[in-house]
């Protein structure tokens, strides 16, 4: 079949730096074409060029065999090309329905046909099995729900070409399944789909063809059949990969963090748990279980009642600063709104949390620069230029910067919410090693993650949350996907531990 959209020798530079070097690419109707590569390999950039958001510096695009240039995404959209961004593209102050129809409102005469739009919004969302009220403001939605809205928006527009940049990075298994079904449906309808994800099992599941990018260059394009996950991973990183998860260190006996009857109004009721020195404690649960809110309550980011004790001393509630001074820090799941100052430089972002370590009166800029250099190597942050803004890093590298920022505060206890969101497989391994090393040094880590293999592979104990309370705790060999899911859905107690 002939390609709908084809890229020939696409090159793209930002300022003097070239990040894509002559990439060739094509999309065929009724086919899912996956694009994989490490963080910063140029996947998002390629997609944005195809979607009309960026213009190539060199090279050409062919639409139905004819050369085209898209001045902006509006022209691309007119040609039936739609894109779901890696970073959200929603106006937070507007409602779900307003966002879904922004720029293409339904009208009745000169007026909005609000009723029709709401009904249609509800329909799209329910197709994705996402039951948020269309009148909710997006700012009030959780990150996964925001992503579902983003997806619903693209699905509702009947695209010939649908480009999806890591749509599942913030989704849990169940939602991912729903999404993949929808993608299969679109494919059956003859749409051409470009898909990227760092979750290689998804790629293996749905892709027909796979293209690998490395460092801005096209490495290979192959049929997915017979391309194993392991082979994909190695093609991406260009080296052998060993076992993903490191050994679990043995926790000590002394309790460093004790949470008693913590209640976060509206989200969490009476949560109690303990964390030991040198322990990696996993937190699992379905979306909306309240894990994020519990953690935010613990470190003082949300009003909460109950007791939090760090190393035997009660923690002053409501003060992030006090928590940090006690050695307790939290790494947010929402890096765009709560994690990084996207318009500011890398250094400013890196040192913001631990600024007092760089001089009380004056900031020691050379020490900051050194810290950046260290962070670059320690967390493998790939920035083409030290002076770029955080917002122009690739998504995965932003996550690494956020991790580096958090670790710069030299915490004793780290709570990491979704540690590997959007991180490539090679780096994931580095982060897992890093977490294990922290624990081995006698620090304690709480990993909140919606990726069950991650929780299972890292933690020596797992707390399962469901509907705002702690639904159970598993340790050692009890930790299995099945046991976690049963507890999370509230059926665990009935059947007992299924170890």
């Amino acid at each position, binding site marked *: 079949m002939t390609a709908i959209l084809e890229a020939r020798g696409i090159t793209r530079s930002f300022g003097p730096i070239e990040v894509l070097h002559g990439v060739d690419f094509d999309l065929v109707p009724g086919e899912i074409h996956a694009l994989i590569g490490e963080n910063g390999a140029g996947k998002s950039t390629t997609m944005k060029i195809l979607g009309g958001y960026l213009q190539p510096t060199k090279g050409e695009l062919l639409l139905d065999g004819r050369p085209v240039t898209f001045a902006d995404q509006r022209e691309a959209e007119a040609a039936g090309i739609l894109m779901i961004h890696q970073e959200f593209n929603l106006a937070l*102050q507007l409602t779900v329905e307003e966002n879904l129809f922004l720029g*293409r409102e339904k009208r009745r005469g000169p007026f909005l046909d609000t009723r029709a739009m709401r009904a249609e919004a509800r329909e799209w969302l329910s197709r994705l099995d996402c039951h948020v009220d269309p009148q909710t403001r997006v700012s009030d939605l959780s990150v996964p729900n925001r992503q579902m809205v983003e997806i619903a928006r693209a699905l509702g527009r009947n695209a010939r070409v649908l480009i999806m940049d890591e749509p599942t990075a913030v989704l849990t298994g169940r939602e991912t399944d729903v999404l993949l079904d929808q993608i299969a449906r679109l494919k059956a309808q003859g749409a051409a789909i470009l898909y990227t994800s760092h979750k290689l099992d998804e790629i293996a599941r749905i892709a027909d063809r796979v293209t690998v990018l490395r460092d801005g260059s096209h490495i290979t394009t192959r049929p997915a059949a017979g391309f194993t996950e392991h082979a994909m991973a190695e093609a991406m990183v260009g080296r052998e990969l060993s076992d993903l998860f490191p050994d679990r260190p043995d926790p000590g006996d002394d309790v460093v963090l004790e949470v008693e009857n913590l209640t976060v109004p509206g989200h969490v009721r009476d949560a109690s748990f303990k964390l030991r020195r040198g322990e990696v404690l996993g937190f699992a649960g379905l979306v909306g279980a309240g894990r994020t809110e519990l953690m935010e309550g613990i470190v003082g980011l949300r009003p909460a009642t109950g007791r939090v004790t760090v190393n035997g001393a009660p923690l002053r509630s409501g003060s992030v600063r006090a928590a940090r001074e006690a050695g307790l820090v939290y790494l947010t799941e929402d890096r765009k709104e709560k994690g990084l100052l996207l318009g500011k430089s890398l250094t400013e972002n890196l040192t913001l949390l631990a600024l007092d370590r760089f001089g009380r009166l004056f900031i020691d800029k050379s020490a900051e620069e050194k810290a950046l250099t260290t962070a670059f190597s320690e967390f493998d942050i790939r920035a083409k230029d030290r002076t770029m803004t955080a917002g122009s890093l690739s998504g995965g590298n932003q996550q690494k910067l956020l991790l580096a920022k958090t670790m710069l505060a030299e915490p004793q206890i780290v709570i990491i919410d979704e540690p590997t969101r959007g991180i490539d497989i090679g780096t994931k391994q580095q982060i897992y090693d890093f977490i294990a090393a922290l624990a081995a040094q006698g620090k304690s880590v709480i990993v909140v993650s919606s990726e069950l293999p991650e929780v299972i592979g890292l933690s020596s104990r797992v707390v399962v949350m469901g509907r705002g309370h702690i639904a159970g705790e598993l340790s050692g060999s009890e930790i299995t996907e099945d046991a976690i899911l049963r507890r999370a859905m509230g059926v665990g107690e009935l059947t007992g531990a299924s170890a």
Partner: protein
Amino acid sequence: MTDTTASAAAPRFRLSFQTLGPVLALIALIILGASLNSNFLSYGNVTNVLARSAFIGIIAVGMTFVITGGGIDLSVGSMAAFVAGVMIMAMNAMVPSLGIGVPLVLAGMAVALLTGLAAGLLNGILIAKAGIEAFIVTLGAMGIYRSLTTWLADGGTLSLDFEARTFYRPVYYDGLLGVAWPIIVFAVVAILGEIAMRKTPFGRHCASLGANEQVARYSAVKVDLVRMATYVILGGLVGLATIMYVPRLGSASGSTGVLWELEAIAAVIIGGTVLKGGFGRVWGTVVGVLILSLIDNILNLASIVSPYLNGAIQGVIVILAVVLQRQGKSAD
């Protein structure tokens, strides 16, 4: 699962304390006024207060769109003075040819509207097309119109031809079924504004622009056009307000409309529109305008204090009106 928690997040128009804040403040002021003076609720006083709110009110409705779209306009007060000046000079010049009568008044109104629209367009072009900070453009425009008006008036006052004025006067003082024209016009503008904000694509586009311009741009919203439109609409409404203003005082000078911009912006913010853009509420603006007018009126009703302190009382009430609103928010 998620739907239960999600629905707890306030849907936009729930009757929350926050929404009611300015309304409560307004009611409190009305009760205060009525208890201070028995004439407060008389037909005459109510008509006076509403009619004089009309100028700022009409402008503030336009300002709501500008602010919702993430902009600001400091030039409206002096623009009103300038439009009034131009209108008066044009009418005076047309008296010989058109004579005194409806054509003259209509011609004057057309001049005012067109001047307002043109001034708004100029602001809009400089802000949306040339990309200059709205604060600076409109601050500059404020100085420019103010001083052009003084110059047109040769340092004094521009006055409408006496007979023309007598003919035009009923546009402010008369009305329909006992409701004065300015009140009718204000009400119509407010209702149309509320509809435009809530029920038309334009209103949504304004809000999206103020919430996140990039997102709006990527959603095929014609960002520059919408932004420009907010300023043009505001300019047109300044023209309309002037059409109501000129028959009242029949003149314009360099001191006409001083501080109207601040009053209009204050009314918008008191009404619950977000200063940084992204969310606007026209009916709130109307409440804000009424609050501001009532404060003046009440201070006149009861000479409780030294007139020097009126400004202080005004300031305190404005802050209190908004405190009511915020407390609702934190209790949310």
